[in-house]
């Protein structure tokens, strides 16, 4: 599927900027008698406005100036990307429930399945790496990593 990147991006950011602008009054409540230009609203306001303006420029470039960049989005690639995102999410959940080492080993297995990598040496190297990373953080640099049974 060929996607007109400027047109799509333009629409996305006009909508995104507009939604944020509409939400501003409920999401940024300024108390007291503070001028708008000195308030916490001013930078988000300009940033959101700039998003809308740039989005409009992209649409004008695409529709009127015929300055467009086509992006090929292939379903297979998207399938792989979504699978990878799923693996990342499962890995994060595994770390949450089982700690870094077990979660990491689970991640290695999932990635081996994803790449159809049956090379046991690779899996072994990566397993050692999980343990190495754990000890590097916790023992050498004294930075804690989640342990088994330690749901935060």
């Amino acid at each position: 599927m060929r996607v007109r990147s400027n047109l799509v991006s333009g629409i996305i950011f006009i909508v995104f900027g507009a939604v944020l602008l509409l939400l501003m009054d409920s999401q940024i409540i300024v108390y007291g008698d503070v001028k708008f230009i000195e308030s916490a609203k001013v930078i988000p306001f300009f940033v959101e406005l700039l998003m809308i303006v740039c989005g409009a420029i992209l649409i004008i470039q695409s529709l009127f100036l015929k300055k467009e960049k086509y992006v090929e989005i292939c379903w297979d690639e998207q399938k792989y990307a979504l699978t990878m995102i799923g693996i990342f999410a499962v890995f994060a959940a595994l770390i949450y429930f089982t700690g870094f080492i077990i979660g990491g080993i689970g991640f290695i297995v999932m990635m081996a399945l994803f790449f159809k990598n049956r090379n046991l040496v690779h899996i072994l190297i990566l397993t050692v790496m999980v343990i190495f990373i754990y000890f590097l953080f916790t023992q050498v640099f004294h930075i804690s990593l989640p342990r088994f049974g330690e749901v935060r």
Partner: protein
Amino acid sequence: MDNIALQVLGQVFTLQNGFFAIASVFLGIIIGAIPGLTVTLGIILFLPLTYGMTPITAIIALLGIYVGGCYGGSISAILINIPGTNSALATTLDGYPLAAQGKANKALSTSLFASVVGGFLGSVILLFAAQPIATMAAKCRSPEYFSLAIFGLTVIAGVSGDSIVKGIISACIGIFISCIGLESLSGTLRYTFDSLLLFSGISLLPALIGLIALTQVLLKSVEEKRKASDLEKVDYVEKLKDPQINKKEIKSIMKTILKSTGIATVIGAMPGAGGGVASFLSYNEARRTSKHPEEFGKGSLEGIAAAESSNNTVVGSAMIPLLTLGIPGDGVTAILLGAFILHGMQPGPKLFTDQAVETYSIIVGLIICNIILYVLGRLFTKQISKIINISYKILGVAIALFCFAGAFANSGSIYEMLLIVPLAIVGYYLGLLGFSVIPMMLGLILGPIVEVNFTRSMIVSFGDPLIFFKEPISCSILIFALVFTILIMRMNKKIEGENPNSEGMSE
């Protein structure tokens, strides 16, 4: 001054600094040598490990990766014609043809020598140039700081890829993300959607990991999965049996190295230009003034020397605007700016008065990293050459493990670790639509500086937005920012026209 010099020597020459400087330069060479790993990625992954270190050790270690990575990029550029880093692209032009003639060792030793001389001189220039610039900049107040931060955002012009409009949107997203949570001046909550998790905002490190590092893992893994066959395997070490560069050849390239160092010092200090632009400009200048221009593109030692000395000089010169004005010279120094802030140091003119010992220690550390590079390059280039073809099936998993561990290590919060997944999704799909994540990162880092100084300026000027133009220094900085943006865009266009493979050279 003597007192500071003694304190600096005492701070720099410690066992801990020595160990981490050697380890990080070594790691940097490996990161640079492996195509698909960038210096930016290396620094982001190493950043969480520096939390337990002193600011001096931490920044020296990160600079070690930068120094090592700039040379490491030339190893794969010379041996397999794939630059390990974007700034090594110009090295492929003569490095690979020379390796193909059976002179890979000569090409690598030329690259090492030029990198070390360029890097060393760039660092020495930083040592002597930084203080006078910082003294001049010390007169800056909030309007000038705001203008400087806007100047820093001109880097966007150099790192936006094919569309500056998309670069501006990307930076806006970064600034917006930096606005989430508690505002520092008034304590107002912004875009928290009543979630306690968002009260303290989105921390810089998880954002960098999610948007840059994990996004890269996602992109490369998908690419690896699609790839039908692996790269052709070659025994690279077999190529390294020829003699190294000799004294006569060193003499013949010295003039080119010095000239390239001069060019790269100026280019590197300009926001947005970076090592890629500097190396191509130096390469073109070396070819223009060479006695043997016909050898360029066929394995010229001058060509390799020009490209490599300039990209390593940029390490030092890009630190000049960073340390003195608080504005990053390229994508890598933008991450370093984040690292300074995370370690409690605010780059800018006050750094040379408030934290003079730490600042000079870091600069001296950078000089030492270049000396270490020479030793490690001589000893280990052959061994490192063996691993440049490592499969992404291993590499991708290892990087992802570091990403999750690093995100958790930032504050010990599972929430920050979970956050990197949606950020990677944002980074991936924006990348698909042609958005570069580097401007987003700049927005994230410079956003708070822009905001604080804008609000302060508004308060002291009773809400007059023209204050930025009424103050002569601030107005000059803004004019400079505009001129630089146009200049960088033109320079990028020219270089991309001459070298079609050079898109997005500034990391």
